[in-house]
Every structure is written in C-alpha cells, then in structure tokens.
C-alpha cells in the first residue's frame, strides 16, 4: 500500500471519486423526478434544511446536546473500564475476583437493557448516560486488561534489574506497553458510543440529533431525517480522526502507527 502510487494530487483525490459520483447521481435522479422527495430528498434539499436549522439555532443546540451526552457517557464508562482494566491487569486477586463476572455480563447486549433502564431511570438524561457508559465500558475494560497482561515480561524484568520501583515501572513500562491495545479499545468504544446514542435518542429523548430526526419523521420531513443521518456520520468520522491523531502522537514510536 505504501510502496504504490501514494503521492500526487491524483491519488489523493482517488478515494473521493466514487462518493462524489454517487452524490451527483443522487442529485440528478432527484432533479429529473426519478427519486420522489418523500422517499429521498435531493442533496440540495438536505443542504437547505441544514441551513434553515442552523439559522434558527436548533441544529447547534441539538448537536451540542448529543455531543455532551456522548462525551459524558464515554468519560464515565471509559474511566471505570480503564480503572478496572488496570486493576485486574496488575493484580491477580482483582482479576480472579472480578473478571469472571464481567466476562459473563459482557455477553448481554447492552441495548437489550433498554426496557429495564426506562423502568429504572424513566426517559431522562440518566437513562441515556447509563446506556452509553455501559456500552463503552466493555471495549475499554477488555482492551486495557489485555494490554497490561501482554506487556513483554522481559521488559518488566529489565525494569526491575535497573531498580525501577512499582510506580516508575508502571509509568515507564506497563502503561506505554498497554497503550496500543487501549487505543484499540477506544476506537471500538467510540463506535459503540454513537450507536448507543442514536438508539437511545431515537427511542426516548426530547432533544438531540436523534430526537430531531424522530420529530421530523412525524411531519414526513425527509430532508431533516437525512440531515440527521449525515450528521451522525460526520460525528463518527470526526471521532475516528481524533483517535487517529492521538495514536499518531502517542504511538509515534511504533512503526505501525508512524504513518497512517
């Protein structure tokens, strides 16, 4: 992949060619009336809807609400998953005590809990937060645990021979060694995070992008429904790019991440 024609403006434009063609095809079909707007609105109609929603401020409001939900859930679930992953990775007792239970719970699809969560929390903010946090917990937990467990024992022996205390050993050897795996967990978690949020906002919410889409559905405003889908896609892409940037920064020593 690296050795072939990867330089030059032509090859940089190459990946965009097919999406661009699809959008043009879509626009032409709409303009010629092949695609009725109540099935799929034209791209220009979606842009128009975006402009209107931007001007009345509701797009930014809903976007902000969804983003805040996603991040709070990620931070809460991620922090718990990371801490337990470290704990069980570093302590045999911790692992024996907690890991079997967590591995069992892991097999329950967290979205299956929605009815129960609604009974517990109602359809308020805490229900959505709980679902997102639960969803991101497992990928972060599992990959942190795996990362810590798989740090090269020869490096740990080296650290001990050179007199590192536990704290230095953790900061200089174990944590950096586990980091690639933790990033894998973070990427997974981001996917789960958006998915959970979409479902949670679609089923039960009175704000957020998912709610915007459901409200539009009632009035058959397909342009706004499509706009919501596009926004979710953009948010997902942004989160992925942010993770890649973090990987490039923190895993620069690893040839696999140096140039992605």
């Amino acid at each position, binding site marked *: 992949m690296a050795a072939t024609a990867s330089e030059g403006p032509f090859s940089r434009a190459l990946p965009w060619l097919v999406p661009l063609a699809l959008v043009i095809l879509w626009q032409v079909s709409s303009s010629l009336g092949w695609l009725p707007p109540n099935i799929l609105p034209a791209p220009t109609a979606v842009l128009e809807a975006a402009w209107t929603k931007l001007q009345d401020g509701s797009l930014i409001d809903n976007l902000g609400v969804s983003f805040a939900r996603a991040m709070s859930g990620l931070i809460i679930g991620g922090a718990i998953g990371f801490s337990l992953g470290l704990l069980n990775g570093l302590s045999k007792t911790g692992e024996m005590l907690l890991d079997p239970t967590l591995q069992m719970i892991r097999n329950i699809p967290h979205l299956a809990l929605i009815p129960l969560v609604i009974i517990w929390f109602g359809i308020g903010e805490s229900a959505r937060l709980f679902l997102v946090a639960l969803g991101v917990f497992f990928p972060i937990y599992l990959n942190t645990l795996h990362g810590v467990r798989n740090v090269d024992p*020869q*490096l740990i*022996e*080296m*650290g001990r*021979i*050179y*007199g*590192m*205390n536990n704290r*230095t050993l953790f900061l*200089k*050897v174990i944590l*950096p*060694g586990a*980091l690639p795996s933790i990033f894998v967990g973070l990427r997974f978690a981001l996917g789960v995070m958006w998915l959970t949020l979409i479902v949670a906002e679609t089923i039960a919410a009175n704000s957020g992008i998912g709610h915007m889409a459901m409200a539009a559905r009632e009035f058959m405003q397909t342009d706004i429904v499509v706009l919501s889908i596009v926004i979710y896609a953009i948010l997902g892409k942004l989160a992925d790019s942010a993770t890649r940037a973090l990987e490039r920064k923190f*895993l*620069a*020593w*690893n*040839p696999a991440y140096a140039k992605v």
Partner: protein
Amino acid sequence: MSSQPTGGSRVSLKDVKKAFGNNVVLQGIDLEIPAGQFVSIVGKSGCGKSTLLRLMIGLDSVTSGVLDAPALKAQAARIVFQEPRLLPWASVKDNVAVGLGEGQSGQAADKQAADILEEVGLKGREGLWPSQLSGGMRQRVALARALVSQPTLLALDEPLGALDALTRIDMQALLEGVWQDLGFTALMVTHDVGEAVALGDRVILIDHGHVVLDLAVDLPRPRKRGTPEFAALEGQILDKLFGDDPRAREAH
C-alpha cells in the same frame, strides 16, 4: 574517548552449588576472577552458563558455597542480554537514562549519557526510536544503558547471538574497545568458540554443571583469527566440548 575509566572488581566463587529444586545445575564451582579480566564462558546449551552469570551479578543466590563479589554490595554489576530489551517508546537517550536509575537527572546525568553514547559510537542518534535502529545499534544502546552507571562488573549473556556475522565482527571490536577504555570486569557467555578466544583473557568451559576447562588466552590484542596459536586454542576448546566425535566438530 570521552568516558573515564571505571576500573573493575574481582569475583570469587568457592565450592558454589546451584540447584532449582532437585535439579542441580551447577556444582563445585571454584573460580578466582581478578579485577578487570575479560572472561569468556562457553558450553553446550542448557549446561548452566546463564545460571552462572546470574549468580555472579546477584540476580540469583547460591544454594551453597561462597560467592564474594564487591560489585554486588556496591550495586555496580550490570547485565546485557541477547535481546536488547529496549523500551520501544523511549528514545535512545531515554533508554540509556534508564541505566542511571531512580531520580538521576540533570546536567551531570545528561553528560554521563552523552559520554557513554559517544563511547559506543551512537553520538548523534540520541533522539531516535529503537525501531529506527539496526540490530547492532540496538545492542549498542543496551550496552550503553548497562555502562552509563559506571559498573565495575558487566555480564553479557550471548550479547551478539542474534546479530548477523558481519555485524558480530564489528561489535566484537567495539566491545573490546569499550572494555579496554573503561576497564570493568567482563563475563561473557557465547556459543561461538572463535569469539570466546578473540575476546577473552581466559576461556571457561562448563559441562554438566562443572568447570571442565579453564584456559588462559595469552595472545596480543587485537587478535587475528586464523593464526596457528589462535587455531590451537580453538581446537583445544572444541576437543573438550565434543570429545573426539569428528562429525560434531565438523558441524560446529
């Protein structure tokens, strides 16, 4: 060279035995190693070479007998393994700094690290990651990390075993030069009899947990392989290693 000589320290073993459970790995080991000597240790795989090294630098304790090594009390013994065991996420300079131990930083530490990197021929590569270095250069970093705290006793467990033949020759010369500059006592395990004779003041052959040959190598340095004296010493060691089995010798 910019690093100051550190000098060496002696190691003495009297009737040392090492067993893991019922498995007696070393027995009746008597050795007097004077300060600054370069000792090569050879023997078949599994005969206890690594165990002997680990004893002598205090990574393991003897089952019985007496081991006396002043470097251990002074925490001035270090080891280099066959694998460089560098932190992949730390630069060359930071990897060497690991050798300075806890809380050693500042200008004096920086100077020490810079000096030893120059000594092993890595000046100008301080900022690189290990993944950007060749196998030989990685082993030089490991050597620098071991030497930066100025140990008087250095153990090397097949330090060049993973390198290709040409790099090995290079590294043998480097190792000899560094040892001559700094003057530490060197204990090197190798499976290459030629390497043992080329570098050692003395070659020790271990078999079934005993020292079966202790041979002084009295040739001027740097030594030329292929001279009759060199070949005679090699032959003596190989004879003892393989007995009179000519096929085993050919294979070697």
